C-alpha cells in the first residue's frame, strides 16, 4: 500500500476534477476544501505527497505547512503570478505547481512521489 495523495483547494470543482484525473491514472486522491479538515488526515496517515492551493480563506498553504509536524513532500499550487515571492526560502516547500496546470508534468510529479513512497515501504 502506497502513501496517500492529498489535494487541498477551496475550489470544490478543482478538487473533484483533480481527483478524477488521478483516478483515471490509477491513483486514489483525498481532497479537502477546508485545510483544517486536512490536518488530522495528514497526521493520521502515510502521505506520498500534499498539493495545496496557496490562497484560501483564513489560511494559506504556508500557515498549513507550519501546523504539519512531519516531513513530507509539500507542493504549493497557485494561480498567483508572483507566487515565487511568497515561497522563496521556504525549505519545506518542495515546489510550486502553477495554475493553470501543466497537467502531464503535475501527474508525473505525483506519480514519482507515489512510487517513492511505495518503494520506501
Amino acid at each position: 500500500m502506497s502513501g496517500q495523495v492529498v489535494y487541498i483547494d477551496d475550489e470544490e470543482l478543482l478538487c473533484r476534477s483533480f481527483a478524477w484525473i488521478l483516478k483515471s491514472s490509477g491513483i486514489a486522491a483525498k481532497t479537502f476544501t477546508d485545510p483544517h479538515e486536512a490536518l488530522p488526515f495528514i497526521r493520521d496517515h502515510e502521505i506520498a505527497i500534499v498539493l495545496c492551493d496557496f490562497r484560501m480563506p483564513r489560511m494559506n498553504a504556508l500557515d498549513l505547512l507550519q501546523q504539519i509536524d512531519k516531513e513530507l513532500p509539500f507542493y504549493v499550487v497557485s494561480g498567483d503570478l508572483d507566487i515565487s515571492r511568497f515561497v522563496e526560502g521556504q525549505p519545506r516547500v518542495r515546489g510550486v505547481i502553477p495554475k493553470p496546470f501543466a497537467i502531464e508534468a503535475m501527474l508525473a510529479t505525483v506519480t514519482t512521489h507515489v512510487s517513492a513512497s511505495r518503494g520506501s515501504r
Partner: protein
Amino acid sequence: MRGELPAGLSLQLLKELVRHVPIAFAALDRELRCVAHSESWLVVHGDSPAQGLLGRRLDEAYPEVSDAWRGICRRCLEGSTERQAMDAFERADGSHTHLRWQVAPWSEADGAIGGVVIYAENVSEQVETRRRLGEHESLVRDFFAQSPLGLNLCRMDGLWLQSNDAFLRIIGYTREEADRELTYWQLTPRRYDAEEVIQLEALRTTRRYGPYNKEFIRKDGSLVPVRLHGFLIERDGESFIWSLIEDMTEQRALERRLEEEQLKAIQSSKLAMLGEMAAGIAHEINNPLAAIDLYAYSLRAALDAGDTSHVDEVIANIRASVARAGRIVQGLRRFGRTTEGEAFARLSIDSVLEDAVQLCEPRLSTSGVRLTRGPICPAIVLGSGIELSQVLINLLNNAHDAVAATADPWVHLEALVHDDGFVTVSVEDSGPPLSASEADRIFRPFFTTKKVGQGTGLGLSISRSIVDRHGGTLSLEVGAAHPRFVVRLPRAAK
C-alpha cells in the same frame, strides 16, 4: 483828491471804507502812484511790498510788473476800461496766481482823468477746481474708452445708447452699427428667455443684476460666452441700465481644458489602480482556467477509456468556469473603459458597490483580509458608474494596503440611506485611527503613507474630485476606533 466830499463823509472815513473793501482794490494817480488800496489787495497780491504801497509807484512797489501792465494802465489813463476773467500772473517766487481783474479810469470833479482804479480777484481756487473737474472727466472718459471690460449703457427697453470699444469688440459690431441701433434682445439667444426674466426681476427689486452667465450673438452669427453685471441708474427721471460685460471665451476654454485634464487624471489613476490589482485579478482568472484545463484533460482520458457517463457534467463544469472567467474580464472591461464625455445615468448604489467588490475581493481574500458587510441599502444616485466604482475600489485598495500585513485584518462595508436625501457608503478597516494631521493631509495630491512604489499618492485626491463632480463629499471620520472613509452622495430624484 480835489473837490468837495459829500456831507458827512470825511476823508478819514473814506480811507477806512477803501481800506476795508472786501475785494482787492487800488486807486492810482496819473503817475501810477497808489493813493488808496484795500487790505484785500495785499492778500491777493501776496506779501506786501517792503516799504508799503501807499504813495509809491506801482512799478516801484512791484519791480516784476510787466510792460503789458504798463500798457494797460496807459490805455486806461486815456479813457478805456480793460478787464480779463482769468489771467495768470507769475509771482516773484515763481508760483502762479490766477486773477480776474478790471482796470478803469477815475475822473476828477472837473471830468479830467485823475488816474486808474484796479479791481482784482484771486480766482486760482476756481481755476484749480475746474482743472480737477476736467481731469476727472477725462479720467472717466478714458476709463470708459480704454476699459478692457465691456461697458454699456442701455435703455429699459434694451436699446443700446453707448458702448465702449471693449464691448464692441466682444459683439463684433462697429460703434455706428451698435449705439442707438441695436437692442439687447437682438443679440440674446432665445434660450435665455427664462433666465432673462429672473435677471430683470432682480434688477427691479434690488436695482442690480448678475453675475449672469450667458451668450451674445455676434455680428458674424457666432456665440460668445459672457458674464454680465449691471445696475440701474436714474438720469433726468428716466431709468437706464449700466452693464459690465466680461468676455468669458478664454475662461471657458481654460475650464474645459481643466476638466479634460481632470478626466485624464481620473483615467490614468484608474489604470494605475488596475495595475495594482492585476495580481489578484490574474489569480482569479487562473483558477477557472485551471479548472477548464483539468476538465478537458479528464474528458479526453474518459473518452479514450470509452467512458461517456460524465461528459455532460464535465462540459457543464467547463462552461461554468468559462462564465466565471468571463465575468471577471467583463468587470475589467467595464471598469477600464474611458469615461470621458459620458453622461450621468441613474445608478443603484448597491450594484456600484458590488462591481467594486468583485474586482477587489480576490486581492482582499488573497491577503487574508476579511470583507464584511453591514446593511447595504439600495438607493439610486445620478452619476458615472465607472467613476464611482473607481472611488470605492480606491478606498478598498487603500484599506487592503493599510491592514494586509496586520493581524486578523478586516474591511467593513456599509451603504446607508439618510433622511436628508443623501446616501453614504462607508469603507472601514481594522487599522488604527489616523492622527488628526494625517487625516488633514490625506486628501492632498501626492500624500501617501505607503512605501515607495506602492501608490501614487493621487488616489484619494482624485477620488475626492470624482465625488465632488457628483455633488457629494468624500471624508474621513476622525475620532472613531478605526479609519472610516465615507462617500456621501445625493440621491436621485424619483
